[in-house]
């Protein structure tokens, strides 16, 4: 429960209010490890802790990379950090994306807004030469083009996977899809027996994405999503993130839809 001390090695402004931190441990040769989909608790001294998903590559063992949106007191404090500044880190925590289940499958990655950040480690793993996935398709929706994450990387990924992007509001010059990201799924042909979907984004978007996938006969057991709720301890003790019979921090944040659908659509939970 005691945080390790890290320092900011690099800070990238993604767009106003959203930034990425590369953080490094204060040791000579740290060997950091995590699974795609896991998260760290980042501690801004004097402000508090927040759970933030990993958004770097598992092959980079020297730094953790986190993309953060400024929402409240702690993330505001994290936003103020500059290269060399220190922060506390606990983690990694939680159950990540089941990378092993992508072998021989068409992988559908469906991301909305900041939801691309927790999927990025998975993209790196799927684009690695050791990946056994047969096909990778990324569907990414954002409010508008200026609010798209990793725009330079998206251009590179386009050469290596099938990328479809969509925005809710077209800005001048935008020459791609406009509309809900779930609309992109309607024109996608999939083999339900040999496909697996990973979804991360606003819960509303995930609900509609699941509807489209179910319409295409993708089994519930082949749909995975990353959930969010209040998290405090990150180890399943405090109960803040209880969601139905599960704790998001310990049993998630990545869940198989087959296991959670009985309460996924219940608003009271």
């Amino acid at each position: 429960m005691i945080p390790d001390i890290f320092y900011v090695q690099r800070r990238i402004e993604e767009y106003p209010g959203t930034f990425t931190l590369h953080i490094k441990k204060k040791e000579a040769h740290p060997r950091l490890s995590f699974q795609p989909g896991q998260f760290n608790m980042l501690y801004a001294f004097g402000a508090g802790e927040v759970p933030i998903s990993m958004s770097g590559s598992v092959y980079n063992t020297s730094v953790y990379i986190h993309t953060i949106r400024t929402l409240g007191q702690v993330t505001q404090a994290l936003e103020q950090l500059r290269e060399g500044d220190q922060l506390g880190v606990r983690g990694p925590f939680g159950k990540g994306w089941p990378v092993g289940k992508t072998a021989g499958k068409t992988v559908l990655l469906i991301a909305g807004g900041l939801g691309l950040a927790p999927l990025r480690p998975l993209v790196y793993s799927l684009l690695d030469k050791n990946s056994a996935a047969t096909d990778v398709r990324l569907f990414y929706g954002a409010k508008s083009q200026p609010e798209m994450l990793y725009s330079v990387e998206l251009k590179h990924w386009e050469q290596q996977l099938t990328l479809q992007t969509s925005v809710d509001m077209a800005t001048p010059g935008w020459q791609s899809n406009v509309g809900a990201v779930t609309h992109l799924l309607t024109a996608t042909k999939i083999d339900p027996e040999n496909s697996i979907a990973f979804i991360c984004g606003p819960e509303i978007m995930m609900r509609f994405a699941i509807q489209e996938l179910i319409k295409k006969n993708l089994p519930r057991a082949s749909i995975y999503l990353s959930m969010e709720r209040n998290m405090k301890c990150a180890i399943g003790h405090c109960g803040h993130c209880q969601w139905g019979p599960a704790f998001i921090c310990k049993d998630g944040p990545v869940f198989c839809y087959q296991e959670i659908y009985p309460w996924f659509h219940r608003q009271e939970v």
Partner: protein
Amino acid sequence: MKTIEALLHDHPFFAGMNDEYIRLIAGCAVNHVFNPQEYIARENDPADYFYLIRNGRVSIEISQPNYGAVILQTLQDGDICGWSWLFPPHRWTFDAKTQTQVQTLKLDGRCLRTKCANDTNLGFDLMQRFARIMTERLQATRLQLLDVYGYSQNKKNHETQNKKDQNP
């Protein structure tokens, strides 16, 4: 080369429609290919046709003074473009412009209106299909209006700290 009937059969909009109706509708349809940046329809022009998109992307746009065209939505493979032909005054409500080369089946709305008037079962079947598309578009528009990815939405809902900020 596929016949118009076969192309209609393959298009999701006509999925499950019986062969007799497909034959009737095929009599009102032709293949049509649009070049990139070509207008399929202009706002307030007579809406005598509608289009089944076989391949390509079409933007639905509206012009704003001093701003130019605003893209409201894009349509893609398997979508349908235009329903103004169904209802008086039979005029397009928005511009429709291709972003890529677009292969379509162009359907003559006047021809179809006559066939629907003569066979109300066909009319009902078509109406149900259009109603489903309209419902889907309405849902999509509502999602767009919600600004689910937006900063303001998250600010409002998640101001309490200690959220997993990553998944807005």
